[in-house]
């Protein structure tokens, strides 16, 4: 993996701070994600990991600090007077088109078939001709194992199938980075595997990803690095082996114990 690469990171986060009212949820986050890396973010609920993910494509605004994706500040542009200005809807749309996201609750468009879900962004954002958009959509749906479900509506698909459409919809846009927000948490246990297999293949193909998950086996096997968050801060940061061997770290120990309990 390109861990020590000298090239500029795909995602560069510096001193990120955000609060909801008086509740500080992100308390100075620094994180670089290099091209081709899979960064797995773990931590107890309320640790700020989902908020971190949602800040990266500005589904949540951030108060202080900086997030750059491919060298471009996500939330703000430099104002005329040197200050920071919020980006317009149009600018944000352009930036978000290069950041893929897959949601815990799939969020497929229920009025569109699997193929149409994938085609929408390719047509309206990438401005591809219909034939080409359909070709790309079919390619990715076949890749995630849904070649026979192209014309199915989300309501006709199982949770695992829906989530694989969600992944196809995101990767078809050819994003610079893919954000996965607890994508297996809402699935029945027997459906988790089929979704994680798809993600594993994407990782092998070099897709840059930031993954929030509770699947520790996945984090260990697929992650280039693991980030353990608690209380709005990054507590531990390193390779899976480094992080998971720090069994004397109290908070990590408590967290892993709870996860284990849930698994058994």
């Amino acid at each position, binding site marked *: 993996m390109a861990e020590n690469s000298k090239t500029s990171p795909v995602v560069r986060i510096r001193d990120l701070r955000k609060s909801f009212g008086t509740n500080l949820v992100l308390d100075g986050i620094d994180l670089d994600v290099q091209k081709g890396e899979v960064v797995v973010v773990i931590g107890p609920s309320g640790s700020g990991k989902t908020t971190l993910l949602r800040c990266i494509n500005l*589904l949540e605004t951030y108060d202080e600090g900086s997030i750059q994706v491919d060298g471009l500040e996500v939330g703000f542009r430099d104002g005329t007077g040197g200050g920071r200005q919020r980006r317009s809807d149009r600018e944000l749309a352009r930036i978000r088109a290069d950041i893929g996201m897959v949601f815990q609750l799939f969020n497929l468009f229920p009025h569109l078939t699997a193929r149409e879900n994938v085609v929408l962004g390719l047509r309206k954002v990438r401005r591809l001709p219909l034939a080409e958009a359909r070709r790309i959509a079919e390619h990715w749906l076949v890749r995630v194992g849904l070649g026979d479900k192209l014309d199915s509506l989300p309501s006709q698909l199982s949770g695992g199938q829906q989530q694989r459409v969600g992944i196809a919809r995101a990767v078809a846009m050819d994003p610079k980075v893919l954000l996965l927000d607890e994508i297996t948490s809402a699935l029945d246990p027997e459906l988790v595997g089929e979704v994680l297999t798809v993600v594993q293949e994407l990782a092998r193909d070099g897709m840059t990803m930031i993954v929030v998950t509770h699947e520790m086996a996945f984090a260990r096997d697929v992650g280039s690095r693991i980030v353990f968050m608690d209380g709005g801060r990054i507590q531990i940061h390193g390779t899976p082996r480094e992080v998971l061997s720090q069994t004397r770290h109290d908070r990590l120990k408590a967290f892993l114990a709870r996860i284990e309990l849930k698994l058994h």
Partner: protein
Amino acid sequence: MIFALQSLPYLWQGLLITLEVSALVVVFSLIAGTILGVAIVYGPRWLYWPIRIYSDVLRGIPLLVLIFFMYYGLPLFKINLTNLASVVLALSAFKTAHIIEVVRGAIQSIPVGQTEAGKTIGLRFGQRLLYVIAPQAVRRFLPPWINAVVDTVKGSALISLVGIVDLMLAIQQVIGRTYIPMPLYVLGALMYFVINYSLSLASRRLEARFAYIRE
């Protein structure tokens, strides 16, 4: 009875006025109500309160009072409209207030995850509205909207009270000449019923067309 039959063309004329006024009001209120309904959900705060107050005030006064107010009041402000235009305006203003709430309710029934999914694939506001929100909201919009259309046709009978010869006034006038009230009222009721009931039936068919959209 012969008189009543001879009066049928006259009732037909009235029916046309009823349908014409209703159609205009339905179109105007749909356009204005959709724009204001979208604005009240997504617009800036300085737009929210004026629309909120407009909608609550208009829905809070009897339609008859509004019609009288506009019919007699507008000329005093040197706004000279034809009788027909002034009642169409009054009915449209009234209906718009209701459509605003229907549109608002339909949009807010869509889970926020849909908007977020639209954002993450890079859709702009207008595109999210057009390709993500509207196709889903239309299913929630249709039943109360058809109700509003039926209400419009029924409410249009009030324009007879400022002397516009719609179906209602045509019936009254024929009764004034023939002195057979009951059969004519029943006939009139049936005419209104047929229009409105077929609207309800049409809406049920439309709803069935959108039934495939489930979360």
